């Protein structure tokens, strides 16, 4: 390869990109360059303009101003197809694969030119299709079978398929692919993250990578250079070696990270725990689960995706059945445990699948807040809209939800602000005693995550017990008072953080 030309001509150059929606300037004069073989970190709060920038790169939006150059040649993307032809591939946070089709079909689905990939005039030639898919998988070092149905794959394997699809363009014209990884690790467990990080290093040899993540430690580990966006502007463009995590946080959010140490409460042995789970089991998911959650304490359950902790947390909320064992609230065994009953007993659940399970997207934010616990917004069965708006305004102020428009459909808010509203609807329960949180910070920018964490701690201070399924072990250690480690449906260890002070390695050893 001719080094001098690659150095002179960036794989991608953006000059003065601006984009306005109505009266909102989503992007203001953004310029940057990405060299071949470079891994760029792109960070910013929700609503900072990252998604708009990505959508311009993938041809979904057209910029109002500014130019895009690929390998030094000016280009215009009239639609996603043009972007694919130029070598830009995206791995989405929420996967966009066809789960009922095979790996090979999924990989070829994106290719703009079919012939070499196993179709002729749109007719599938299966042998060729499988062969070329296997070749692509080999390039990224994956040993997935091209005939496997994507629906049968694990999450990280599916991401491999997405990556294979994204680099497919490489074999089209010898163009170097630019792979955009849009929060690829947000939904991954720890071991899986490492697989992905290895993959990123491999992609460097093939082309360029734009890595979008809210996890600053990952950005620091994997990227050569970091771009920070705030309010639609590129506020920093720094080599990784010249910046610290704390600086990045400040650049993104606009203020320094607040101290996160919280007072860890002591367990009072005389007080009945809020939740006692005894020998709970569900066939094929978990067995013999016994633990307690105490008022004012956060119990973090850690484990990989097959550990059964998700199923366990849903059983505690009454959303999934269990085969045997007991759940007791304040010393009283529960029976006929279903979500409406759990809710009436002051149990709250924030699911990981926020958009599907956590909220009613086409209800306004205010309606969502009072749907579960209307509190003062209802007089018996009657809901009073003006009181509802009062309640909603109170929570909007408390949690700093933006934009400050309680009548807007909840689905139109950014992820972080949606999660604040989801938190508000549970915090609006005056009898809240158990808060079950399944990945509450998933997809949240550090600012929103900070707000949500503050209110989790606030709920603790007000006497609720919290069960936390954290995104990362670091988060579990930071937030948790008690840590329960699960592996293959069993509890393998328990720690009292203030006494045992476990390290991430201690936890990891018992997880896998």
């Amino acid at each position, binding site marked *: 390869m001719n080094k001098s030309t690659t150095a002179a001509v960036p794989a991608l150059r953006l000059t003065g990109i601006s984009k306005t*929606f*109505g*009266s*909102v*300037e989503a992007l203001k004069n953004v310029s940057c360059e990405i060299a071949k073989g470079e891994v760029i970190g792109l960070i910013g709060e929700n609503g900072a303009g990252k998604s708009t920038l990505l959508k311009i790169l993938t041809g979904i939006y057209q910029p109002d101003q500014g130019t895009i150059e690929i390998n030094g040649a000016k280009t215009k993307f009239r639609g996603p197809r043009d972007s694919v032809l130029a070598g830009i591939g995206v791995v989405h946070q929420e996967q966009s694969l066809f789960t009922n089709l095979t790996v090979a079909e999924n990989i070829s689905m994106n290719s703009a030119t079919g012939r070499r990939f196993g179709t002729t005039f749109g007719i599938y030639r299966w042998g060729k299709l499988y062969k070329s898919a296997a070749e692509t998988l080999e390039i990224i070092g994956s040993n997935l079978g091209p005939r496997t149905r994507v629906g049968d794959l694990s999450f990280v394997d599916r991401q491999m398929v997405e990556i294979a699809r994204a680099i497919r363009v490489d074999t089209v014209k010898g163009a170097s692919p630019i792979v955009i990884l849009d929060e690829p690790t947000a939904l991954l467990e720890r071991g899986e993250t490492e697989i992905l990080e290895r993959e990123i290093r491999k992609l460097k040899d093939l082309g360029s990578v734009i890595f979008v993540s809210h996890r600053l430690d990952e950005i620091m580990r994997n990227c050569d250079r970091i771009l920070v966006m*705030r*309010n639609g502007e590129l506020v920093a463009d720094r080599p990784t070696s010249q910046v610290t995590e704390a600086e990045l946080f400040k650049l993104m959010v*606009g203020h320094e990270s607040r101290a996160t140490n919280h007072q860890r409460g002591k367990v009072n042995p005389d007080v009945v725990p809020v939740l006692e789970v005894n020998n709970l089991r569900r066939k094929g998911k978990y067995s013999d689960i016994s633990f307690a959650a105490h008022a004012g304490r956060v119990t973090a359950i850690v484990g990989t995706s097959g550990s059964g902790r998700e199923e366990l947390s849903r059983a505690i*909320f009454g*959303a999934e059945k269990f085969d045997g064992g007991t759940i007791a609230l304040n010393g009283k065994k529960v029976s006929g445990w279903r*979500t*409406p009953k*759990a*809710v*009436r007993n002051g149990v709250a*659940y924030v*699911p990981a699948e926020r958009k*599907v*399970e*956590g*909220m*009613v*997207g*086409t*209800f306004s934010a205010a*309606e969502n807040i*009072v*749907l*579960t616990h*209307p509190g003062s917004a*209802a007089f018996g*069965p*009657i*809901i*009073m*809209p003006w009181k509802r708006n009062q309640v909603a305004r109170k929570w909007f102020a408390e949690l700093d939800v*933006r*934009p*400050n*428009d309680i*009548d*807007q459909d909840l*689905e139109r808010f950014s992820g972080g602000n949606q999660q604040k509203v989801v938190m508000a*609807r549970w915090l609006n329960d005056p009898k809240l005693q158990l808060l079950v949180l399944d990945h509450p910070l998933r997809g949240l920018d550090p600012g929103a995550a900070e707000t949500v964490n503050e209110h989790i701690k606030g709920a603790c201070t007000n006497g609720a017990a919290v069960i936390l399924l954290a995104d990362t072990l670091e988060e579990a250690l930071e937030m948790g008072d008690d840590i329960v480690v699960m592996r293959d449906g069993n509890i393998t260890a328990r720690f009292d953080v203030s006494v045992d002070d476990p390290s991430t390695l201690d936890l990891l050893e018992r997880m896998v």
Partner: protein
Amino acid sequence: MTTTITKTDTASIAQKATADGLRSRRAAKLWGAIGPLVIFIVMFAIVAILVPTFIGGGTGLSIVASSAAPILLLAVGQALVLNIGSIDLSNSALTVVGAILLAITLGPLGAVAPVVVVLVVSLFGAVNGLLVSFFQVPSFALTLGTLGIFQATALVISNATTVYVSQNGGVVSPLYTTRIGTLPLTFLLGVVVAVLAWLMLRFTRVGQGMTAIGKNESGAIFSGVRTRALKVTAYALSGFMSSLAGITIIAQAGSASPMGLGSDLLLPGITAAIVGGTSISGGVTNPVNVIFGALTVALVPIATAAIGIEAQAQSLVYGVVIIVVVSLTLSRNKNSIVK
């Protein structure tokens, strides 16, 4: 300080965006609120211009309202079921069952008969709901099945003939004969239940829960909404509306038969709900607008006859008008799939 400047910038941008959003949302909301009324008025005006005698002494409106009454009752029930994301194909069959039951029982039971009919038919509706929510049979398939069962029931209890009210017809007939202005009580009954249904959806936890189910059922489940109980309630209410429609049929005709009045109200009922802005995919309805939906659906065939369109062309006109009207009023947002 630069930070303060950017802060006010974002604040003003956010404010502007909010204002923009508000404006477009208000326009959409306004059309959603008055669209069906506007359409009915426009169509009525067109008919009145073409056939000036149609409005003479309010006769046109009176005929349309009489014909709209049973459609409206069924449509309000259907709207409540559509609102939870389901459908009730059995409602018109239930209406016929109710009408035949009433024709049989009015003689022996007198004024108690309508109460019995309302209770029994509402119970049948609740059974639909129980089966849908506890056995998780898709509502389309389930109510298609109960449609057949109720039709058979109607045949059995009527001996497959027309049943005439033998005595006490006067208990219900004033519903049809009494007029306020030019409108029969049957229609006004429909208006009252429509308004009550609207109040329920808008101002009660039950109603909000139902709408939540229609918009996102798993979201509702995880919000602790009592989804099963509310589904049963919606179907029971649909049964209740069917029983009222059955009563209006006896009030109007004094007799009922398995294939007679009321048996062909299923599709007009669904159409009226949709013309009234109800979404077929659930979560969006306004029972007050269903009133105008029912009036529009009743108006079209009457108008085509009054204008003197040939019989063969009347169905064509009906079809075209319904497509146009539905495309104007059907609630959709860009992300939802219109099924």
